[in-house]
């Protein structure tokens, strides 16, 4: 009998050990805590760790708080991780996310700490333009703060331009002339990809042709099968068939394609500056950029695509108060000067001192009346519609043809999404 009891006890103990190994720590332990003065910070921009830590060094001195960095290199895995973390006791103190429908999804489930007070203070201090607030507003409250800002411009290989006597174009006609010259000399004018950033040229052509239609498409007031959209797709198709674009399946990084002269120009966010610097290209010498002229010369303002990624705090996170304090500091001149120069990018804070002269000028110009800022297509488009669009555009740049079937597929997703929104 004793033997049986011993055996049962041993087995139960074994099971308990297995379960203990499978289970997490209890609420009282400190596992997952970032420690005193440290805030758990998660991002899908794992490659930006040195820059985040550079800012963290500054914040530890001036704020007494630092970032305990966890970076993901795969955006999909990161998204799944953040979503699942809300079901646990290890909610992220600070994490990067997306504006638009992805932000609305989190707010709808009451998962985010509001940042309305932080925004009021930052706007009154001149740390952030009032116009940016709407991208972080859901209902009557603001959520998250801007992690970064970027404008979408045209980067070009400067030695190639000099070799063929080309100047920065100031109109669409001039841009096409530049492209034709390059093509005639056996140089591929523009970068193209069929993965993720397949939407970029659709965005550029539509925003530069009819910005009202661009906005209407984003909020479901226009259809992807509208004549204006079809016209833009036909223009894109003509450019593709003319041979203006590089191989969309080339998996060489855009910075290497520009450096190697595989393509002469890349339509990209200003964060490309940091990537170009990382491959030993020098701003103003090896590369430069210009604002992409409107395809429609009659528009009163130049459409300039703008993107911003939020830095959010989970509601009831372990260090919620400190995280919100950090978010407030992140918008300050000190933080943004450090961040923009560490990344080699622009800043949303007009007071930030950007060392890269070209970026600093762009930062200043963009606030003027000559430019119409439009939210990047990626954030402006609801996720299900975006997914269909990325697939469709990816197929389109690979095999240019009749755009209608693709547009109808995207519109079917859009119809389904907007009908659910009431």
């Amino acid at each position: 009998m004793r033997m049986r009891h011993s055996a049962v006890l041993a087995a139960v103990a074994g099971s308990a050990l297995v379960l203990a190994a499978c289970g997490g720590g209890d609420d009282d332990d400190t596992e997952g805590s970032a420690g005193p003065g440290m805030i758990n910070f998660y991002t899908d921009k794992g490659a930006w760790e040195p820059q985040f830590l550079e800012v963290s060094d500054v914040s530890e001195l001036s704020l007494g708080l630092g970032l305990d960095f966890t970076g993901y290199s795969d955006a999909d895995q990161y998204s799944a991780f953040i979503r699942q973390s809300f079901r646990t006791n290890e909610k992220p103190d600070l994490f990067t996310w997306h504006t638009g429908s992805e932000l609305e999804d989190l707010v709808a489930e009451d998962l985010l700490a509001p940042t309305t007070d932080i925004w009021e203070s930052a706007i009154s201090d001149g740390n952030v333009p009032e116009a940016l607030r709407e991208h972080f507003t859901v209902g009557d409250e603001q959520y998250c703060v801007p992690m970064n800002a970027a404008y979408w411009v045209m980067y070009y290989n400067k030695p190639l331009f000099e070799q063929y006597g080309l100047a920065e174009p100031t109109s669409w006609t001039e841009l096409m002339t530049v492209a034709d010259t390059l093509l005639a000399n056996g140089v591929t004018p523009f970068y193209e990809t069929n993965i993720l950033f397949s939407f970029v040229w659709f965005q550029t052509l539509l925003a530069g042709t009819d910005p009202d239609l661009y906005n209407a498409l984003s909020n479901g007031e226009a259809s992807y099968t509208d004549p204006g959209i079809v016209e833009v797709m036909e223009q894109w198709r003509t450019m593709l068939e003319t041979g203006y674009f590089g191989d969309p399946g080339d998996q060489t990084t855009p910075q290497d394609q520009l450096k190697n002269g595989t393509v002469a120009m890349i339509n990209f966010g200003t964060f490309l500056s940091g990537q170009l610097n990382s491959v030993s290209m020098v701003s103003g010498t090896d590369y430069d950029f210009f604002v992409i002229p409107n395809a429609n010369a009659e528009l009163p303002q130049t459409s300039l695509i703008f993107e911003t990624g939020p830095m959010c705090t989970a509601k009831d996170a372990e260090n919620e108060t400190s995280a919100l304090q950090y978010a407030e500091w992140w918008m300050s001149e000190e933080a943004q000067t450090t961040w923009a120069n560490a990344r080699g990018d622009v800043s949303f804070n007009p007071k930030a001192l950007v060392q890269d002269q070209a970026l600093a000028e762009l930062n200043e110009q963009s606030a003027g009346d000559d430019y119409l800022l439009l939210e990047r297509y990626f954030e402006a488009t609801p996720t299900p519609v975006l997914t269909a669009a990325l697939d469709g555009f990816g197929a389109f740049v690979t095999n240019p043809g009749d755009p209608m079937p693709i547009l109808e597929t995207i519109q079917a997703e859009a119809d389904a999404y907007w009908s659910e929104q009431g």
Partner: protein
Amino acid sequence: MSAPATAAPPTSAGGSAPREPRRRDRNAYGWPARAFSLPAVVVVAVLLYLPFLWTTWISLTEYDGLGSPEWVGLDNYRAMFDDANFLTSLRNTLIWVAGTITVPVALGLLIAMLSHGLRFGAWLRLPFLLPYAISGVAVGIVWVFVLQNGGGLSQALDTFGLPGADTRWLLDAPMNTVVMIGAAAWQQTGVNALLFVIGLQSIPREPIEAARLDGASGWRMFRHMYWPMLRPLTTVVVGLGLVASLKTFDIVWIMTQGGPGRNSETLAVTMYEETFVNSAYGSGSAVAVFLSAVTFLAAITYLRRQLSTERTV
């Protein structure tokens, strides 16, 4: 009082002949045995059964990873079969199955037969085995360099003046699926050859020598002697290939990410795409359940057929 070492067989109340003890009574260590198996049962339940049941439940809901899943019954399954992307994925998966159970198996068998019995046969097989030491991800990366536009293959064809230098190997469907099967076969062929060699070495010499004395050689020897005797091993090799091909993911994800425009997706890629890219956990789970069911049924059906055939042989 200690327990008896063995339990006495039960007798009927009327004193008639004792009945055969029921199966569960035969084990004298009933409770201790069950208790000892408990940790393993818990592990299997927690790590295998519960996730599958959870996935099945999620497949019957609409769920974006936030909040609570919302019951939608079989809607995800209906939508799945109405979805052109899913049907493309299903077609590609069938191409993978056909390709994987023929090309690397046939090549592996060919290499094994040609090198079997040769003095330096092992050295001849070694180069084919080396790719197996590389992970699927690394194989994908290497073959992207070879197959991308202007890549190694296109350059080689161009250099030798052969046609096909402009072929877009990874962009056009179903060409991209076919060339990815080729890349997978490059990795798998060597290990299949090794397995067939093991099978050849386990064949007794006597019947082979007897057949040889009877004048059998070449194709007749293979068709009537080697092939039937290799059948158990072929069953295993094909069975493993069948299951592996149904759940193909890594090489596709690395080489094309299922694109362009989702035209090279397999069911496993679609499952990932729906779940983690589109955050449609319900749809992704429906694909996962479908894929699991197909894999399970295909494996069971194939093995049962093969094993019953072998018994009759």
